[in-house]
């Protein structure tokens, strides 16, 4: 789904400080019925992440942590089964998974001799049953399951979606009989930067109304919506690096992107929201 900047801004506007819950998402879907669920979710997630990034610091002061921890303790004393931590997160406008991490860290600090390592915490978040305190384990679990933007569950889902789209793309390439090298093969050959696929024989993508087509040497699959923030980060860390090594290529944002970002076509970075249909390959007889 390709949105104009204006359309995108309208959606983003609706998302200002909306809790990352499924209800919020449903409301959003009602508000923008023409947009696909996946696109909205992706935008929602990105906007929420931006929001969290902006407010992250204030939740990490020792006073804030202390106060959250006390509220948690007080809450579970009253009713250990109530979603204390989740409610707290929503109340202070912080991501439940991150709130769970905060409290878990604090908890471990209080109960262990040495401060807990990051990997221990990550591991406990992935599998709350490892948390020594049963009540906290339950609270953390509620947070993770209900957070649709952060947390190991979301990460896992995102990873799966990303992989799924790579597989989808691979199938399409095979179906079109385009031969390619994938990321693993490239890494094995010692490439320092590896797009998802490098075409062994480049193709030209035709654009309506354009005289010339665009050469494509590599394809990168992104199972997300291409907004300004993420696109610029990708450009800097990935796309330009690919261009610097392999020439022009194609990025597929499966959940759409802001139209205005597709401004480097002439330079050699092409954006699409699906696999391009109008592809020309090297013919069998040129002359």
């Amino acid at each position: 789904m390709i949105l104009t900047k204006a359309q995108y801004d309208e959606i983003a506007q609706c998302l200002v400080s909306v809790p990352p819950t499924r209800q919020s998402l449903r409301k959003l879907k009602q508000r923008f019925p023409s947009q696909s669920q996946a696109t909205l979710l992706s935008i929602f997630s990105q906007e929420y992440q931006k929001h969290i990034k902006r407010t992250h610091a204030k939740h990490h002061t020792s006073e804030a942590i202390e106060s959250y921890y006390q509220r948690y303790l007080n809450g579970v004393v009253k009713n250990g089964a109530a979603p204390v931590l989740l409610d707290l997160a929503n109340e202070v406008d912080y991501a439940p998974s991150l709130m769970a991490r905060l409290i878990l860290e604090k908890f471990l600090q209080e109960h262990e001799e040495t401060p807990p390592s990051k990997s221990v915490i990550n591991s406990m978040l992935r599998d709350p049953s490892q948390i020594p305190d049963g009540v906290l384990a339950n609270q953390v679990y509620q947070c993770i399951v209900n957070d649709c933007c952060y947390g190991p569950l979301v990460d896992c889902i995102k990873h799966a979606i990303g992989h799924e789209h790579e597989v989808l793309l691979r199938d399409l390439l095979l179906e079109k009989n385009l031969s390619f090298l994938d990321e693993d093969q490239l890494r094995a050959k010692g490439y320092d930067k590896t797009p998802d696929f490098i075409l062994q024989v480049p193709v030209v993508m035709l654009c309506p109304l354009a005289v010339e087509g665009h050469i494509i040497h590599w394809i990168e699959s992104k199972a997300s919506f291409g907004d300004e923030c993420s696109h610029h980060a990708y450009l800097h860390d990935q796309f330009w690096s690919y261009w610097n090594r392999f020439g022009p290529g194609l990025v597929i944002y499966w959940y759409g992107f802001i139209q205005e970002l597709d401004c480097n076509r002439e330079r050699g970075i092409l954006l699409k929201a699906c696999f391009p249909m109008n592809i020309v390959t090297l013919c069998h007889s040129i002359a």
Partner: protein
Amino acid sequence: MAAVLESLLREEVSVAAVVRWIARSTQGSEVTALTRPQDNAGEAAALSSLRPLRKEFVPFLLNFLREQSSRVLPQGPPTPAKAPGASTALPGRPGGPPRGSRGARSQLFPPTEALSTTAEAPLARRGGRRRGPGLARERGGRGLEEGVSGESLPGAGGRRLRGSGSPSRPSLTLSDPPNLSNLEEFPPVGSVPPGSTGRTKPSRRINPTPVSEERSLSKPKTCFTSPPISCVPSSQPSALDTSPWGLGLPPGCRSLQEEREMLRKERSKQLQQSPTPICPTPELGSPLPSQTGSLTDEPADPARVSSRQRLELVALVYSSCIAENLVPNLFLELFFVFQLLTARRMVTAKDSDPELSPAVLDSLESPLFQSIHDCVFFAVQVLECHFQVLSNLDKGTLKLLAENERLLCFSPALQGRLRAAYEGSVAKVSLAMPPSAQAVSFQPETDNRANFSSDRAFHTFKKQRDVFYEVLREWEDHHEEPGWDFEKGLGSRIRAMMGQLSAACSHSHFVRLFQKQLLQMCQSPGGAGGTVLGEAPDVLSMLGADKLGRLWRLQERLMAPQSSGGPCPPPTFPGCQGFFRDFILSASSFQFNQHLMDSLSLKIRELNGLALPQHEPSDEDGESDVDWQGERKQFAVVLLSLRLLAKFLGFVAFLPYRGPEPPPTGELQDSILALRSQVPPVLDVRTLLQRGLQARRAVLTVPWLVEFLSFADHVVPLLEYYRGIFTLLLRLHRSLVLSQESEGKMCFLNKLLLLAVLGWLFQIPTVPEDLFFLEEGPSDAFEVDTVAPEHGLDNAPVVDQQLLYTCCPYIGELRKLLASWVSGSSGRSGGFMRKITPTTTTSLGAQPSQTSQGLQAQLAQAFFHNQPPSLRRTVEFVAERIGSNCVKHIKATLVADLVRQAESLLQEQLVTQGEEGGDPAQLLEILCSQLCPHGAQALALGQEFCQRKSPGAVRALLPEETPAAVLSSAENIAVGLATEKACAWLSANITALIRREVKAAVSRTLRAQGPEPAARGERRGCSRAFADQIPILGPPAQYRLERGQARRLLHMLLSLWKEDFQGPVPLQLLLSPRNVGLLADTRPREWDLLLFLLRELVEKGLMRRMEIEACLGSLHQAQWPGDFAEELATLSNLFLAEPHLPEPQLRACELVQPNRGTVLAQS
């Protein structure tokens, strides 16, 4: 000097004598351009008394002409800078103020670029510190300031289109001359502006800084962007000027001084008589646009030429000097002549006397050019002498010349020749715009982790690559924005990046990337950018070049062409080259520079040593050009790459020595010389040059060497090492006489390219201008070493107009000048020549649409981008060979069949028409009209051949692990390229080929029928022509014929002996021990040729077997080296063992009986 010219004009000496006189002083070779009347004693005496002045004659003549033209042409376009100021000693110039010396060359270099960087600063400071040998000193010590004239002529700024000049041709106006009528700003050369006697000498600069439309006439001053160029104190003699001025004047100079002293007195007398110096006539030349409307061009009329004879004489001397390469820069002189041709109108100086007596007219006392008519007459006279050069200019220039109505009016004959040359010319030159940059691809073989010493180095380089391209992209986006500054915008980022390079190995990685990117972006025309292909843009040019190129050409036409800055622009870094220059400067990393020099030197050596032509093109005249096309492209790619690399090598290598300060003098100079002379050169260019000359590869080596030297600092030409190089180059320059064309000499366009680049080099400010005129020429003509191969690149037609203009865009100034004449002339906008615009060559029948062809070409190019370079080379090689073989195949099959058909048709014809057969020409026409249409099959057959042969070849040559998709694409591209190559040639030449072969068949058949008297005559003419070409055989090692050549030569000889000799030929002498002994020295010994000869002698009935046997027998008795005797014995046995063919009686009779001719002669 004036005396020489005077004697010439008084006809005391002949032109030829004068030119011989000048040329002798510089070289011993004979003067070829002119007929050579017997020396007459009077002439010799007249000239020998002037002997010491010889060297000064040419500079004098050039300055004289510039000066003369400036008197009558203040209105004209800027005059090219003059030669180093030689004597301006002209007697009796009325009212002429005393003149300072003229330096002159300084003005050749308008600061076309804002020279913000220190590196180019020295270029900006083009002091006019040069002068001819031993001159300026006596000019009141004003020597060094003449170049300061910032108010010298600017480019084309100050003029707008005149009359009905077509506004749709903006480019044509670019070189439009400025309005020169403001004489304060544009003082005529030779006059000091009133009230500025203490000021610097004004002198003329050759024009054009690129001019934009906004520079309207009303603001002429905006054009004068050139700051005062040099502020070298006048007392300081030039460091480079080694001329022995001052106390140590040689006798010749002293006499010159006397002459000048007299002149000076004479002049001051005149000055007193007419206190008003030449001053502008303001009404004639207001720079205001409102008045330019009145500037109608003065018509030129041959009938009103004032003194033909005098003009003719001077023109002849001048032309001869040009023809003999006695002038430093051929194209500069042509530019000057074109300016005279297109002079618009003349301003009459107040003091000039229109009523000159006939006596005065004959001497130098009156102006040479009294009117436009004179100028045009003179110009046309000179142009007539240089038709050959003109005819080799690009088609556009030829068109403009041929359409020039003045030329038509003054010399219809020349116009006719030019028109014919235009119509026959295929030299369309286009400096196409390239697409934007593409990155150097990542190649695992050189770029992966295994090539780095540590993970850290690997990752550092990974980041560097990204930063480098980020910087490059930013530059692309911003460098054209006003106010954007490279150093400010990117400098710190570049230095930070360079700072990360710690390991030496990382430096070499980065340098490799840098150099590859440089080659990729800057190889193409004018350095304005490059094809995206990288190191070898030939696939592009081979495959669908036309289709891809067309768009760029259109773009080129829409964009104002970059002016190259006059006929002698300073070395610059146009387009993308600017990025690389600025990068080097901003990085200011000593390590980087060193690694870069290493890498550039290596690549230069590698390319310079490349075996070219790669495949010896077949010498059969017909299809040789099918091979040459590819060779020429290959050559162009290599040459352009070399030039680019050498330019950057020169830039970096001399960077530490260039600075804005004036060149050192005196003791300081000595110590600097002592210091510098022990520094080894960055690349041993002298040896490379020597080898290049020896191997007859000057056409490859010299152009890049010139680029390298153009960045030398002022001290370089003084160093012995480089002095030697300049001496070699000067000798080479003299030896490149264009009119000398013969077997074994350099091709014309090759010479022209060398003359152009050398001429340009001689005008570079850092090259001392006296170098050219002072250099005592070699005592004998420049000769390459005798061990040189008979054939080298120099003898191969590797240069075409496209390459010439690409390397020397300033030659295009000629066209601009002519175009500005057209656009400025009312009612002249439409030429009479029809503009023929072939849209595309119709080659293959069913072709995919243009667009899809373009896409395929684009894809084929892109395909190679990420593949190893060897893949590309393989595909190109296969395409090249298969394409060439395809043509040979067609010749052996289709054409041979048609010839057989022709023969049988002819037989039928002869049978029906009786013995006499009929007119051969008519027969040929009939046959050709029947057979030529079959030539159309050639394309289909050719296509089929390429499709059949190419894939297998590709498969055999590529590594086995090549992925299937890559392999099949490579095969397809090879098929396409081969087909395109073959079919392009076939569609253009098949008819001619069939015709030629059928013609040969017809004459064979007819000859078999019995000799026609007419045919005999023709044949004899042939043999005469042939006799001219028989090489004088030297020692066998020196002159080796190609195998095919040798066999053909034998055929021709046999046929001569058989058909053309009227008397008996003593053929047995061929087999004398002495002649056969010649074979002993050759390796390998070509016994097969001898055997062939013997057989043919018998076959043709020229000798009987018995005779040969006898000869061979007597050979055995001679003394031979052991192995030779053995081989000779084998040969005899071989020959004798051949079955005896019964010898027809008739043949034996022919030999003994005197033939008809002999009988006739005896009766």
